[in-house]
């Protein structure tokens, strides 16, 4: 049962049999990209279904249960409907930017997926600046939203886009800083390295108080990063109608919609890798079977995804200026204090090691 989990190595060896070295690498990369695209497109659809079901249970409803057994094919049907929808656009829209915007968003969210360690070596792209790469990629998504809102020549979309620009830039800060506090313990950005360090105690336990504060700040900033309630001023239904993607329909709207859910998955996945020990089982109980780690990773991520959905269906929306005061006056100072606190603890090595 010991299939080698390092898929990149196996595929490159397979291809290098009848291809030159360089071509094999490119071939491997393309196949892995296609595999990831397939997996996460479907995962995105089922995240949408999970969101609709969880929302229904919160709201005394049943949620989709008509299409397929227990409504499992509902979002598949939605995707097919969106594919067949006509791609309308506004008259004086800036055609090139209008069509380019969705690709920015979907590409940046899919690229960020490549870095996650699902189990032992099952990782598409293990680079030593893993976390730094993640934060850089996730800030490209906002360019897509700004472009989409500005280019669709609709005033509501413009307001939505400007709001998203302001929001994501300010919340990049606390996402980065809160992850930085955790890197103080691990010492390296490489995600597999971070998981290694957590072999003797998850980081949230190792860093105890400052780690908990960093986790809370990270969750708040992460929800704001993906433009989800209570920070969803970008497509505030009751104020701006559909915000920046008002003028998008069909597959382009599907990209925006799918990207939002994959971003939610990424934020939750980063939190599990950094705070809750990625694919490690709680006390090393399933250490022997490495590929079981995938379920631990997916399980923890889904717990955090559920938490973000819980936020969405309970809290009202913040106003734009309150959002900024929350970030600059509350989260940022707390973050800086937290880094100093964490540095002190690491220096006096008061971290709890198992």
């Amino acid at each position, binding site marked *: 049962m010991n299939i080698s989990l390092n898929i990149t190595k196996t595929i490159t060896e397979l291809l290098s049999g009848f291809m030159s070295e360089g071509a094999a690498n490119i071939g491997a990369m393309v196949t892995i990209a296609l595999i990831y695209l397939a997996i996460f497109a479907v995962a995105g659809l089922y995240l949408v279904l999970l969101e609709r079901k969880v*929302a229904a249970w*919160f*709201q*005394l*409803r049943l949620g989709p249960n008509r299409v397929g057994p227990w409504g499992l094919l509902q979002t598949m049907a939605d995707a097919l409907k969106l594919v067949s929808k006509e791609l309308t656009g506004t008259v004086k829209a800036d055609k090139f930017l209008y069509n380019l915007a969705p690709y920015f968003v979907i590409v940046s969210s899919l690229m960020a997926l490549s870095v996650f360690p699902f189990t032992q070596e099952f990782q598409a792209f293990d680079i030593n600046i893993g976390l730094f790469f993640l934060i850089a990629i996730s800030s490209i998504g906002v360019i897509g939203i700004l472009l989409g809102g500005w280019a669709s020549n609709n*005033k*509501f979309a413009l*307001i939505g886009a400007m709001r998203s620009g302001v929001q994501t830039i300010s919340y990049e800060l606390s996402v980065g800083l809160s992850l930085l506090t955790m890197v103080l313990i691990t010492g390296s950005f490489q995600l597999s390295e971070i998981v290694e360090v957590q072999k003797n105690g998850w980081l949230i336990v190792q860093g105890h108080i400052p780690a908990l504060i960093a986790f809370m700040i990270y969750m708040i900033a992460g929800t704001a990063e993906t433009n989800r*309630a*209570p920070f*969803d*001023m970008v497509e*505030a*239904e*009751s*104020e*701006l*109608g559909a915000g920046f993607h008002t003028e998008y329909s069909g597959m382009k709207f599907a990209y925006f919609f799918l990207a939002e859910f994959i971003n939610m998955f990424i934020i939750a996945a980063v939190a599990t890798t950094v705070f809750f020990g990625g694919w490690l089982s709680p006390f090393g109980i399933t250490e022997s079977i490495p590929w079981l780690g995938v379920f631990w990773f997916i399980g923890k991520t889904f717990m955090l995804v559920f938490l973000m959905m819980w936020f969405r*269906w*309970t*809290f*009202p*929306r*913040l*106003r*734009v*200026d*309150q959002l900024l005061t929350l970030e600059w006056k509350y989260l940022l100072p707390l973050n800086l204090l937290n880094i100093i606190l964490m540095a002190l603890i690491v220096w006096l090595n008061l971290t709890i090691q198992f």
Partner: protein
Amino acid sequence: MDTTIKNSNLKSEEYFINMGPQHPATHGVLRLLLTIDGEIIKKVEPDLGYIHRSIEKMCERDSYQQIVHLTDRMDYLSSHINNEAVCLAVENALQLEVTERVKVIRTIIGELTRIASHTLWWGVMGMDVGALTTYFYGFRDREMINDIFEETCGARLTMNYNLPGGLMFDIHPNFVKRTKEFIAHFKTKLPEYDTLLTGNVIFQKRMKGVGILSKEDAISFGASGPVGRGSGYSCDVRKHHPYSALDKVTFNEVLKTEGDSFARYQVRIQEMWESMSIIEQLIDNIPEGDYQTATNAVIKLPKGEFYQKVETARGELGVYIVSTGTKNPYRLKFRSPGFSNLSLLNHIAVGGKIGDLVASMATLDLVIPDIDR
């Protein structure tokens, strides 16, 4: 406008945006012409008439029974209280004495309509401010009242249960049982409204200090109902000009003084408790008697003018009938509460952000057919 924008040479241009007539925050076909500078609102000008059916012209050709059924379609959330307004006006004009039983039943169903309207307002207010689950909790309680109405009057929203001279038919045998069940249920659920939304720090930040209306402006703009009472202006028609069985019940008028959206919100939540206590005082001893005193088929009001004030869920509804003794009124004017409450929107929204406009409009609880008539 904080000072940073003022003295910087960065000149931001105002631009003009169209909120409505099809917009989630306007709850109906109201079009607001907003002049905004970035996020800050400079001017709000409502453009009405999208659902204007000229009910007042129709009243001039209809008999009095038929006018009663038209008022259902004005403020459809307090349709029973509208019907009661016209019936009271006709009964007072004819000096027609209505039995005690009818007065008590009218007051009970009126207060139930008020609770139903406030629960719907609370659910939709939550949606406007972003919390989408409040809608379903609000509607769960409202559905119980709708079932009571459906069982007794046969219709859920536009009931037309009132006739000049009494009620169309008697209350259903298990009307009393269902109302008591509802009161018991709602007493456990209303505190939940507070823990879910009122206490929430985000909600309070969105509502406190937003859309401030002083008492003098409230009176001068003719604001009535919870909008007026949120600014400390005591305008409850049930207190000052009691009608039906309201003079036999004791309830206190909810008054807040801050005059911001949060005060109007709290007035409505507290009013639901008051309405429940009114129902409890009346539900157990509904006097016996017949439910309709006979009126001749064609009602002719004596020559003269008659005015009747009633407190609907949105405020003070006035029915002004000028009659020349024929079977339909010479002129019938409805003083609608929503109309005056809307006129102060520009006064309270200028200077705020779009989010504030939506929040203060939600607390004005506008129903557009009531404004357009």
